[in-house]
């Protein structure tokens, strides 16, 4: 059963620096699933530690960009003694096709996972063709 598979640690991938950030520190690529349903394209990104006030989703020149900020003040007064992963902000961009209705994109964040729903434009929806 696919569900019973034992989970493995996924190494975090750093964002390729173009354009470069003006602040020091590393940013990570959120692990992402993209899938299509009848009416929409769904983009699901894992950004543990990001709450809904510190995530920014924007569309500019047909590029969808997701930025997630981690709250570092929570680490104040903590001294690391044993570490297995690093923490950082998240950033990832995707090129959108014209088949997406860019004005109706919606987002939902739960348990550190953000789900973006990108509705298909009317003309891109599948339609049945009647045989006359």
């Amino acid at each position, binding site marked *: 059963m*696919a*569900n*019973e*598979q*034992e*989970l*493995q*640690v*996924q190494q975090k991938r750093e964002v390729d620096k173009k354009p470069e950030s003006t*602040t*020091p*520190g*590393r940013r990570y690529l959120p*692990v*992402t*699933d*993209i*899938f*299509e*349903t*009848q009416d929409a*394209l*769904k983009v*699901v990104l*894992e*950004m*543990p*530690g*990001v*709450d809904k006030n510190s995530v920014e989703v924007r569309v500019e020149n047909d590029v969808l960009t997701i930025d997630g900020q*981690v709250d*570092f*003040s929570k*680490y*104040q*007064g*903590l*001294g*690391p*003694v*044993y*570490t*297995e*992963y*690093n*923490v*950082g*902000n998240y950033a990832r961009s995707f090129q959108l096709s014209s088949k997406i209705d860019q004005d109706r994109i919606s987002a939902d*964040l739960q*348990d*550190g*996972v953000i789900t973006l729903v990108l509705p298909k434009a009317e003309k891109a929806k599948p339609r049945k063709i009647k045989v006359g």
Partner: protein
Amino acid sequence: MTPSFSDPFEALFSLQRALDANLASDWMGARTTAMGSYPPINIFQKGDDFVAVIELPGVDKADLQLEAKENTIRVSGRKNINYGDGASMHRRERVSGVFDRTISVPIEIDPEGIQADYRDGVLALFIPRAERQKPRTIKIK
């Protein structure tokens, strides 16, 4: 001295450096080098006590089980991903499945006093050091 990560401009950078510096830490000892097991764990010292921070994005709180006994803590559960019916995949990077990890901390802890907080896909465990293990000042007569 515990590092301060409060300066917003420097915070990210200095925290990342501190985490990197501890990547080869042998604090857990040779017997519990379970590195590479899921979920990954960071452990911090906070005064006399400890905080374990574990990233578990997409795990529902109801699917997460915690057990503590003596100086071991067990974190187990299941991560479900539901794509819905009739979805066609374009990109699949997330993984689902079950996990079960037990860590033994090399200090005496108070298992009754452990507090857990799960928020935004991050589990924080506050692990108090056993009272009798806390350092005490000795008065000179």
